[in-house]
């Protein structure tokens, strides 16, 4: 058998548990815990004038009712603003329980704790809240008008205004031979993991310690936040992300009101308390993303080369800004994709509305940026009568221009410098995969049969692997098994497998001997979190660094035992041996398990193997102490990886759609993906990430929208009404890969998590525009949207193809 699994599409190590019902998701923990439920605001904008709990008192099973007034100490302060930024001049966050005012439907006002969830919800229904209604601000136009305000002290509803530029875009555009302007519109969607949020807390009064399980993407940071809010020493707080049923961005936000309140109540009551978010709560009590209006002004030459690009974005940040302005920063930087824009200026306004707050959802502003740039590329091509791929190719950054500095600052606060990538090669592969050149013949054929088809293309570059750092810990146990831990969390990415592949490769052990833990502060306390397609880059390299140190130590100890130069040794299948010698060579090898025993000098033997490490167990070098200076006992070590700046993955999608001439139904006939995320640890997992991303991209392009009415009520807060795609709506994804290793990290990895979703709306808008003969500028698009666009565009004198 071979230990070589790095780069191989091995089956996942976590699957058997998950497939047999042995997973432990948040609501699977704490069967005897008290249950929490919340009274949430049914109004989008109101003052709270009174809370009446009279009817609730005495309900059998009720344990406690809490309002904002009960929140003592720092628990009653506004929730933290996680990512401050100088442009965020009017950042606002809510309270764990609303104080005086509510700013969106779903904002928690009262917490009820009871013996079970049924009772807790009964009690919620008996609590009366009096409101004085305030006019709600709903939709970007209303926010931009600024006639009505979400927060009295935020003029014009503007949380932030930010400009980034390189060169004089306005002058470059004015001087350009051709100028176009586009107005674009992307609606709200949301991460919508199948498992909502949830928190379980247990206070151990005897030990004065708190253990919190939470369905999060950032357990170490939740610990820091809780220690601060609850005024506990951080080392008395443990936070564990159990199995997490999908995140896609929404669970990077922390601490949620419930993440503060459930532990707070557990301490106060001295009882285990649990809250599991239900689906409606998730729609109105978590966060959304995507909603933006964009105005693009572009100047270009006769060949279609961009000379100047000026983009203005109005970004709907909802009621509060807990995650700062990361999303619009990403939109206005990642918009550039694989292109050189000429002179560039991007300005955004991040605007408050009385709706659920906006924080990153997979793609995190990139899908909107990609939509703006790719719609622009198509518009340039249409204006000049050029093939859409030709215009793109002419604007590409060439491989010999890497690393390419855009002269802007990225979301990590560091320069936007692309590390590597071969965009022309990616395009060539995509054209071949989808049959770009043959499409016109196919269109003619389809047209002859009375069918309407179109082809679209969209390109993206994704900054991945953002810092500041991640760490890893690797230990060889005395039975030869390997345990490893990293602090970032897992929500389905197969980290236990991919990281085991990394450790197995570095250490020379079989992959199934490696057991990886993620997201558990008891095992690794320093971490940032899982977002921005960063886990493989960051923790992969950190664990590789730790494993390399362990390997060096193992070779050193084995060298002493074998009386060999460590440089002549290798580890194969968990056995240290002289390079190239057969495993059976006498005296020429030593199992890693034995090395682990020897690495920890013992006084007491607890089994035969341990005897070898005791003081009389073998030859002793009297010239040095049992643990030499600078050494530590045990075959274990820790490594960290901190990148100088982000890596940049890239990819291109093409789609062929059919639109029904009568009903305007939109069908995706083919969907092709070529992507380059650097070195692949496990191609099967990467491919799965792409498939899932594409499904979310298709959902965002054709089905998913958060429908708010003028009163700020979310009209489709259920799976009955919010149209997440089923198997029947998602196309088969055809994929091809490039592997351009990143020069920035030892493993050459770029991230893959978000790639699939980014060009979804752009590529489908491109294909539908191609089928229909008029530009699609607003996504998502439903058959009825398309149907009415047809009549409008016909009125405008354009003839659908």
């Amino acid at each position: 058998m071979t230990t070589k699994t790095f780069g191989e599409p091995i089956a996942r190590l976590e699957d058997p548990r998950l497939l047999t019902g042995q997973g432990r998701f948040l609501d699977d923990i704490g069967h005897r815990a008290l249950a929490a439920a919340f009274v949430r605001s049914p109004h989008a904008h109101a003052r709270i004038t009174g809370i009446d709990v009279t009817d609730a008192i005495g309900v059998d099973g009720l344990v406690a009712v809490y309002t904002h007034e009960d929140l003592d100490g720092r628990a009653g302060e506004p929730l933290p603003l996680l990512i401050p930024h100088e442009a965020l001049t009017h950042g606002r966050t809510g309270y764990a329980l609303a104080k005086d005012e509510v700013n969106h439907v779903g904002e928690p006002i009262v917490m009820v704790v009871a013996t079970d969830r049924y009772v807790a919800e009964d009690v919620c229904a008996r609590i009366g809240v009096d409101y004085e209604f305030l006019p709600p601000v709903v939709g970007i136009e209303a926010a931009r008008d600024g006639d009505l305000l979400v927060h009295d002290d935020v003029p014009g509803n503007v949380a932030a205004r930010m400009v980034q530029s390189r060169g004089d875009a306005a002058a470059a555009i004015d001087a350009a031979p051709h100028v176009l302007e586009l107005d674009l519109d992307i609606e709200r969607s949301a991460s919508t993991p199948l498992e909502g949020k949830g928190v379980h807390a247990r206070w151990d009064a005897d030990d004065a310690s708190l253990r919190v399980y939470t369905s999060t993407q950032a357990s170490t940071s939740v610990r820091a936040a809780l220690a601060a809010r609850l005024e506990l020493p951080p080392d008395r707080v443990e936070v564990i992300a159990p199995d997490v049923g999908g995140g896609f961005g929404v669970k990077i936000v922390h601490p949620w009101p419930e993440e503060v309140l459930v532990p707070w109540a557990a301490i106060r009551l001295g009882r285990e308390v649990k809250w599991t978010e239900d689906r409606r709560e998730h729609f109105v009590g978590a966060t959304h993303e995507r909603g933006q209006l964009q105005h693009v002004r572009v100047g270009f030459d006769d060949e279609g080369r961009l000379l100047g690009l000026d983009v203005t974005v109005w970004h709907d940040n909802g009621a509060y800004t807990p995650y700062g302005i990361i999303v619009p920063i990403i939109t206005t930087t990642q918009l550039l994709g694989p292109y050189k824009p000429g002179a560039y200026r991007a300005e955004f306004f991040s605007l408050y509305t009385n709706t659920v707050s906006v924080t990153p959802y997979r793609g995190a502003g990139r899908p909107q940026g990609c939509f703006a740039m790719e719609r622009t590329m198509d518009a340039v091509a249409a204006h000049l009568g050029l093939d859409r791929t030709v215009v793109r190719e002419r604007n590409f950054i060439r491989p010999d221009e890497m690393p390419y500095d855009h002269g802007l600052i990225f979301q990590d606060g560091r320069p936007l410098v692309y590390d590597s990538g071969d965009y022309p090669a990616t395009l060539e592969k995509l054209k071949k995969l989808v049959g770009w050149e043959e499409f016109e013949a196919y269109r003619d054929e389809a047209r002859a049969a009375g069918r309407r088809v179109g082809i679209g293309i969209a390109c993206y570059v994704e900054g991945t692997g953002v810092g500041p750092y991640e760490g890893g810990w690797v230990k060889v146990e005395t039975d030869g098994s390997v345990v490893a831990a990293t602090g970032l969390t897992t929500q389905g990415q197969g980290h236990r497998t991919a990281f085991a592949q990394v450790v197995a490769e570095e250490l020379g052990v079989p992959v199934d001997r490696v057991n990886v833990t993620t997201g558990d502060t008891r095992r690794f306390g320093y971490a940032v979190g899982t977002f921005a397609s960063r886990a493989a880059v960051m923790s992969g390299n950190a664990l590789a660094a730790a494993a390399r140190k362990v390997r060096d130590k193992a070779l050193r100890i084995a060298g002493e035992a074998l009386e060999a130069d460590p440089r002549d040794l290798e580890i194969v299948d968990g056995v240290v041996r002289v390079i190239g010698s057969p495993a059976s060579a006498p005296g020429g090898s030593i199992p890693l398990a034995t090395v682990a025993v020897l690495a920890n000098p013992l006084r007491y033997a607890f089994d035969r193997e341990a005897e070898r490490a005791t003081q009389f167990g073998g030859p002793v070098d009297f010239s040095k102490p049992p643990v030499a200076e600078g050494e530590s006992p045990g075959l274990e070590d820790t490594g960290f990886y901190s990148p100088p700046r982000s890596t940049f993955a890239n990819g291109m999608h093409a789609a062929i759609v059919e639109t029904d001439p009568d009903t305007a139904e939109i069908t995706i006939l083919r969907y092709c993906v070529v992507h380059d995320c650097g070195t692949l640890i496990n191609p099967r997992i990467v491919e799965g990430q792409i498939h899932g991303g594409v499904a979310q991209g298709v959902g965002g392009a054709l089905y998913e929208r958060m429908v708010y009415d003028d009163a700020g009520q979310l009209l489709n807060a259920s799976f009955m009404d919010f149209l997440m795609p089923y198997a029947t709506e998602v196309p088969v994804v055809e994929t091809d890969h490039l592997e351009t290793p990143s020069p920035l990290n030892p493993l050459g990895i770029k991230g893959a998590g978000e790639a699939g979703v980014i060009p979804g709306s752009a590529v489908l808008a491109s294909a539908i525009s191609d089928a229909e003969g008029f530009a699609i500028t607003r996504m998502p698009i439903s058959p009825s949207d398309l149907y009415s666009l047809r009549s409008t565009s016909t009125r405008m004198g354009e003839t659908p193809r």
Partner: protein
Amino acid sequence: MSAVEELFEVTLVVNGVPRSATVPARRLLSDFLRHDLELTGTHVGCEHGVCGACTVLVDGRPIRSCLQFAVTVDGAEVTTVEGCGGADGELGPVQQAFRDCHGLQCGFCTPGFVTTITAYLEEHPAPSDDEAREAIAGNLCRCTGYQNIVASVLRAAELRAEEAGR
């Protein structure tokens, strides 16, 4: 103030084992399985019957356990994902197929797919590609894009056929 709820003893044969608990009439079957019997393999994704994560087999037929009261199925035979394994603790054919085809990522929706597909293959042992897709079209998955789940249905059919041929 409020009356104490009347309780009922409910007995189900779950994965071949008779299990009882005393619960109020309004206890959902999903909560009964998860919280009263502590069989947490069955997951709850929406509590309004749309996502399918809570699907279990009642007398062999797939149903949404979040839309049933436990008392209404008193006495029934129930199969959950914990009961979809093979002999001697190995993965069952559908579970094995999901592993072979990378048909799961976070694993939250997976139990509902496993039970749904188990029941489907009983009646349709050799589905086509399109039929396999249709078979899972009532369950939501947010991670996989379904492509590998469709492949898992086809692979499970193969594994079942191999098993039957042995």
